[in-house]
């Protein structure tokens, strides 16, 4: 057993990776799903063990094949990536029980083996990006997750052919992003001769004025900015989320962009550090305005959407604005908000897209007119949308409130008054688009020709409500999440100065 526990970090990635080809061999509908489910739960268990271990006894360094870093590949787990690993595998563990019926409804039954193979690869990629301590390895896993994500999005083509163009668009932009990232890593390698992140951080310290380092920094931030859908590089996101199968939207919306945020955090704070003149400047002059624009343009665009999946996709653009804003604030409270919101936003959007998947299962398309009067016929589903919607608005006693609380504290700490007011103003935009749905569902009249609609099956409602309850639980007792996030923020800012 002790032999195994030593290898926990590598199991986190190796198990999903190796089970993916196995999955492609499985026939039928049930077996591939069962395998993916088992792997997800295993990965979740591992990530819990990792987080406990890291909280108890500090960072873990795992040397791949026993090659000592910086020559070999190192897996390095500290509080932040243990936390992100937990988010990814946790969402996957909840999304898969939900997935069976939804995928059976939306994806070609002959392709389920391939679908779950792509899903496992995507999971592998996201976990790999997070756990690895090697800059080039990040690129490799990033490509694994992206390529499989294109496949997953394109699987929505059975429902709507536009999924193909959405996937293609994402493919082109995603590849540009990944290429920028690898160019940036290449520039850093050229100057420092190392790819190990910890080593890179040390060697880069005296090179602040080096043009190649600065160019590398710019390439990495822009490349990852594309992947995390930072405004104005968000254009791939709404279509991708709208036309992907419901399960894929749940999974990608809650995890993929979060992982990119993690990479940005890692490079900003571990590798470069805010003490570098040019890094600090980007906070105030690039991240801050872009974040605020994202908050307002994303939310405003969401108000005018009629397709509900697209509505929440635009809302994600706005929410990513909050996450970037936390970075831009550059203080402990702001960074705590960023890390918290990685988790909190995964909970909200996970719940909302799951609920939309339930609606899609019953009535097909999810348009604002289609859901009129459905609140009575699908009471649990729409109660979930209302609950998660309140969280999205940031009503107290939900997780959304906790994130905003720290974000505003961070703004006030910098005495950035207007920013604090803009944060609350943008929450008010969320009220409008959430309430549009509530009003249609509860006080609207059913459109002509829609027969009676049954509530979604328990198998989908249970995971959905698990997420909704989590939205409230972690909003009322935020001790656990805030202490982890606070610890992360303190390490980042402590190590940078």
């Amino acid at each position, binding site marked *: 057993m002790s032999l195994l526990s030593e290898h926990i970090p590598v199991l986190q990635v190796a198990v999903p990776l190796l089970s993916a080809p196995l999955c492609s061999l499985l026939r039928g509908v049930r077996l591939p799903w069962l395998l993916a489910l088992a792997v997800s739960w295993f990965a979740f268990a591992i990530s819990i063990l990792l987080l406990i271990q890291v909280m108890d006894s500090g960072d873990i360094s795992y040397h791949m094949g026993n090659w000592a870093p910086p020559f070999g590949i190192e897996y390095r787990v500290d509080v932040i990536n243990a936390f992100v690993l937990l988010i990814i595998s946790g969402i996957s563990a909840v999304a898969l029980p939900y997935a069976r019926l939804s995928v059976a409804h939306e994806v070609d039954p002959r392709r389920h083996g391939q679908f779950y193979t792509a899903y496992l690869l995507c999971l592998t990629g996201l976990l790999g990006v997070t756990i690895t301590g090697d800059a080039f390895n990040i690129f490799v896993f990033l490509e694994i997750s992206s390529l499989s994500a294109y496949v997953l999005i394109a699987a929505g083509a059975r429902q709507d052919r536009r999924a193909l163009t959405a996937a293609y668009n994402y493919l082109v932009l995603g590849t540009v992003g990944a290429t920028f990232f690898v160019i940036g890593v290449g520039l850093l390698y050229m100057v420092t001769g190392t790819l190990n992140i910890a080593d890179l951080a040390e060697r880069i310290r005296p090179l602040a004025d080096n043009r190649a380092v600065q160019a590398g920094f710019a390439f990495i931030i822009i490349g990852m900015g594309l992947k995390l859908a930072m405004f104005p590089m968000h254009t791939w996101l709404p279509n991708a989320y709208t036309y992907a199968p419901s399960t894929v939207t749940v999974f990608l919306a809650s995890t993929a962009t979060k992982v990119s945020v993690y990479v940005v955090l890692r490079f900003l704070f571990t590798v470069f550090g805010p003490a570098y003149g040019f890094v600090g400047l980007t906070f105030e002059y690039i991240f801050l305005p872009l974040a605020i624009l994202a908050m307002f343009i994303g939310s405003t665009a969401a108000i005018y959407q009629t397709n509900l999946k697209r509505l929440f996709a635009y809302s994600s653009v706005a929410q990513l604005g909050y996450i970037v804003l936390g970075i831009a604030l550059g203080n402990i409270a702001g960074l705590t908000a960023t890390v918290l919101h990685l988790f909190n936003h995964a909970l909200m959007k996970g719940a909302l897209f799951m609920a939309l998947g339930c609606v899609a299962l019953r009535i097909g398309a999810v348009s604002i007119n289609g859901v009129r009067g459905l609140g009575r016929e699908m009471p649990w589903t729409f109660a979930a949308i209302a609950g998660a919607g309140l969280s999205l608005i940031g009503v107290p006693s939900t997780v959304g409130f906790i994130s905003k609380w720290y974000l505003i504290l961070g703004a006030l700490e910098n005495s950035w008054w207007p920013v*604090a007011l803009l944060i609350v103003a943008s929450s008010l935009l969320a009220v409008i688009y959430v309430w549009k749905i509530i*009003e249609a569902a*509860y006080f609207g009249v059913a459109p002509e020709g829609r027969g009676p609609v049954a509530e979604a099956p328990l198998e989908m409602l249970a995971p959905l409500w698990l997420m909704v309850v989590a939205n409230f639980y972690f909003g*009322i007792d935020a001790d656990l999440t*805030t202490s982890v996030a606070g610890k992360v923020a303190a390490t980042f800012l402590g190590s940078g100065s």
Partner: protein
Amino acid sequence: MSTEMALALTLLIPSLGGIAIACAGRYPNLREAITLITASVLFAVVISLLQEVSGGREPTLALIEVVPGLPLMLKVEPLGMLFGCVASGLWIVNSLYSFGYMRGTNETNQTRFYICFAIAIASSMGIAFAGNMFTLFIFYEILTISTYPLVAHKQNAEARSGARLYLGLLIGTSIGFQLVAIIWTWVAAGTLDFTIGGILRDKIDPTMLPILLALYMFGIGKAALMPFHRWLPAAMVAPTPVSALLHAVAVVKAGVFTVLKVVIYIFGIELLSETGASGWLIWVASFTLLAASLVAISKDNLKARLAYSTISQLSYIILGAALASSLGVLGGALHIATHALGKITLFMCAGAIYVATHKTKISDMQGLGRLMPFTFAAFCIAALSIIGLPPFAGSWSKWYLALAAADAGRVLVIAVLMISSLLNVAYLMPLVARGFFRPAPPRQPVGAAVTPGARFGLAEAPLLCVIPPCLTALGCLVLFFYADEVVDLLRPIVG
């Protein structure tokens, strides 16, 4: 039963009652019995707490720490006790009235109505007994959200747009201003606990105090300070029991109650009077007071007139707080109780008239007093109480407010109070005069149901619509003689 237990029960009873009502939805009689029992048990528990508080104790219950240093906490103090008693006591009367009204007008979705009502009362209890500003804010928001379905009850276009305005203004002001004020307070003072004497002394630059106060006052949209008052008339599309309890008692009183809490326990009246930070508020409140009265005169729809009257009366309480003296605060707090009794009576009478005759316009109500003498008598008593004539309860709160203004040497404020009383006469008494002194209209029974008193040539609404307003009107009279007890209860808050 320990006092902590009782405190927790004030939240649990109405919440559990709401669940029970949901389960009993199919059996109207059972559902309404549960409502009544829940209301009565809640009132009994609140009264048991009242004995603790008048004994000088302050039961406290810490629930959970949300983020470090920010607990959810309940604590009973005299002001909250008063609000809690008023809201829970009037819920009983209002429940009886609701049964009569909702059945009399054959409203749909009655189960949803009673559930939301119970949740709204639970959140009012949370507001009344909140131990810090954060807890209060949470219940404040729950109250807004739980009353939204009540306002949108009729589900037609008018109800939907009214409810939209209601939600938009209340959520908008609370998140846009109040939340900012709360966070600012937390950053400056490091605590949000309600403390006598305030928590802001020496924590914040005195020149910033008026700005913080403004964020609070306009952020507490439920107090309907102009220009954020439009939600209250918009909410009048709701069925009358909702207007009666929520928009004369629970919701609006939650607003002015929060105003008093902020002034007494966050700023501290001494700090405000030393720095003069609330000077501007006196004029904004005075303006709201007079302007709303003038608008009320121009309204022919009875409920709309009462709504503007409420806006005006709420500003009396804000005015009391703005004067930042012990007399002003006492007068304001007393006005919470006296106005609640008076205004709920007026609304219930308006509803009774609607149930009996389906009339909503004052100009159509000629001579109705002869057909509905009990309803109109109750209306008359409540109107006199609101105007502030002895021997009715409303006279005391106005008396204290006038004393406070005189004490502060603000002659203009006294003038405002007097003019406003005259305006009250002008918008409330015409209905009484029309009702009693114009000839009665030919009798046209509206409902098929047999109405009480028909034998004597009367055309009252069903008994359950008539008895509750008579009870509360009687309350206006009784409270006049027991106002002293209320003032004694409140005395500790001004030190």
